[in-house]
């Protein structure tokens, strides 16, 4: 199996796994690079453009890693959402609680 999984079953997508952790690590790095890269690029410093470039690569990488999993979770969850919403309305009425 490839290091980054591209095809997901509903049950596997619900679980927390390597792809989630990769997104969790890449995402803050992308923000840091965006913050520093943008400020220095506006000052027209070459290092700013380099860091901004790294930020863009990181963002693409993050989406590539996590997007198939998010799509699967969403499709699977939307099927159950109506039932869950009904359950939610019951919980809102607090005197119904045991």
């Amino acid at each position, binding site marked *: 199996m490839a290091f980054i999984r591209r095809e997901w079953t509903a049950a596997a997508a619900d679980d927390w796994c390597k792809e989630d952790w990769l*997104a*969790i690590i890449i*995402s803050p790095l992308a923000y840091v690079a965006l913050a*520093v890269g943008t400020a220095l690029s*506006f000052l027209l410093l070459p290092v700013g453009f380099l860091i901004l470039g790294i930020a863009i690569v990181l963002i693409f990488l993050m989406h590539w890693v996590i997007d198939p999993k998010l799509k699967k979770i969403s499709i699977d969850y939307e099927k159950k959402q109506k039932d869950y919403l009904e359950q939610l309305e019951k919980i*809102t009425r607090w005197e119904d609680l045991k």
Partner: protein
Amino acid sequence: MVQFALLDWIWMILFLALMIGCGVLFYRLGKRSESDFFLAGRGLPWWLPATSVYATHTATDTPMWVTGVIYKYGLTGIWYSFFAAWCAISAFVSTRIFRRSLAYTQAEWQSLRFTGLGSELLRGWVAGWQVFMNMFIMGWVGIAMGKVCQYAFGWPTWVGLIAFSAICAIYVLAAGYWGVVMADFQQGIIALAAILIVSIWGMIAAGGPGGIINRLKTLNSSCEWVIPKDVASDALIRITDPNTGTVWAQSENPVPILKKDDPTSTEQNQQYLEKLDEKVGQILANQAGLKNKQVQILFPAGQDTLIAGFTYSIVWTAGESGEKVNLDYSLDQGKSWINIDINHYNGQTWRINPFSFSGFTQGQFPVAWFITMMIIALIGGFGMGTSIDWYTEAQRIQSARTVRDASYSIWWGTALVVIRNSIWAAAILGFFVLFPGIGETGKYELGWFRLGFDFLPAGMVGFFFAAILAIHLSTISTQLNLGALYATRDLYQHYLNPEATEQKLIWIGRFSTFLLLLGSFIFGLMMEEITKWLIFALWIMAAGVWLPNILQVIWWRFNAWGYLASWIANLGLSWLVVWVLPAFGIIPELPDYLQFWALMLLTAFIYLPITYLTKPEDMDHLVKYYVMSRPIGFWGPVHKEAVKRGLLAEVQAVG
């Protein structure tokens, strides 16, 4: 004062008509149901809540806050605004979990996560707290708008506070969240355009990017000095080598300091201070100092009279750039010295470096602060409510049409916030180069607004003011609708009238919106120092509940009583640790990052025993929540139970 040309008035009137038009256009959608009035029917594509996240977090006080920290700390100040980065992890963790819960609000989520009396108390507490916080936030954003209008038009602050929030209420009352999110989309675009135009324009006025950097290389050195209010004697200032203690420079003559309430000083105060700012700016720009290899204090000198309780810039010859110095002052002719700053950089080029720290624990920007902030912001993304922004984001998360849309809306909305802060930061370096001698925070906080009002050509000032209105209205509208959501869903519907019809709930939503608006005026008129309040709210009041906010998401055993205990303990302890105990000399005044760790530890001594001394939440309830939300972390026993009951498709290893 700003003078409007005809074109300026046209910009402003067009913008206000567009916003009020939003209320009319989406009135029909907003009144369909409670879900429409507060969540736009849970059907928005990711880019709509994303622009709403961005627009909402671009408030009138935000450029003041960012300007304040960048003017003081240079690009290192970017990290103060990096609190928003909690969304980096949240977008893929707590956002996903919260979206799957379908809870309207964070308070409602707690009824899904916890159970019984503890959960009910918690829901009421969190909802009440949020209603209060929404009024508080609108108050401080509103008074920021009052200050901007006072600077631009000379209006009393209450006029700016009341007039524009009241206009905003029109479309929020009419169309609810539909009006908010659609107006936010337009406001986000207008605000981003204005931020780009004003920042680039301001940078060009300061000599362009190359000119700014060159100017920073030639300016003399400076450091802020806040003179305590009770000082009333002559002072000496010295600059020393931080490693050897060698004195590099000392005032030739003592500098007289007048008491703040001295009659002679009150007469002069404002005009005198403004003249001093100009003088300091000229001294900073005087390049003669560069030729002098010897360190020499240029301001204040013996002929300068200072007033206690105000902030000044101490200026000395640039020396070698990158070298660090310590600054002290003495009130007893040099017998004893009081520290002003430790490890402060010589020259001004340090302002271009986003990592110019003053040591690990020492000085104005220590690495320990940076690490603490990174932990708070990033690790906080595993929890819910670790940032005060979570509560507004929670509404956007639930309004997204899918889990994926929710994740991307939070991620991209915050990415825009991060980019925006950095654009501002570059522009504020330009402002610093133009006006380097401003001592008082309240004055330099207005730096970005000054770039717009002072340098944009006639006809564009109206566009700039329309953009200021956009950033103001986007925040106020969100807070109005959000506060009304908590008041309606969590207080009225949950506790008072569970069988209320959809129509009734919408009217309660509108009534709550109106009450919140009135409350915000009262809070706004009570506030003065924006930065001080923001730091307290962002940093301290969240410290003790930061870890419990994560534990409630990642640890099955954490219960409602533990969470409630952490809130109550934090409210008491934060005032004790920050103000009361230091005031009585029981503990020293701690730097803010140590206050955070102290509060986190102290509250844990209260809520962890309470968690273990009380029962875990009911397993049936936990299993329901687990299957629906699939939380991350330590949920082993609940997972096993869910598998045993056949509610999960396969056995997976969980913490």
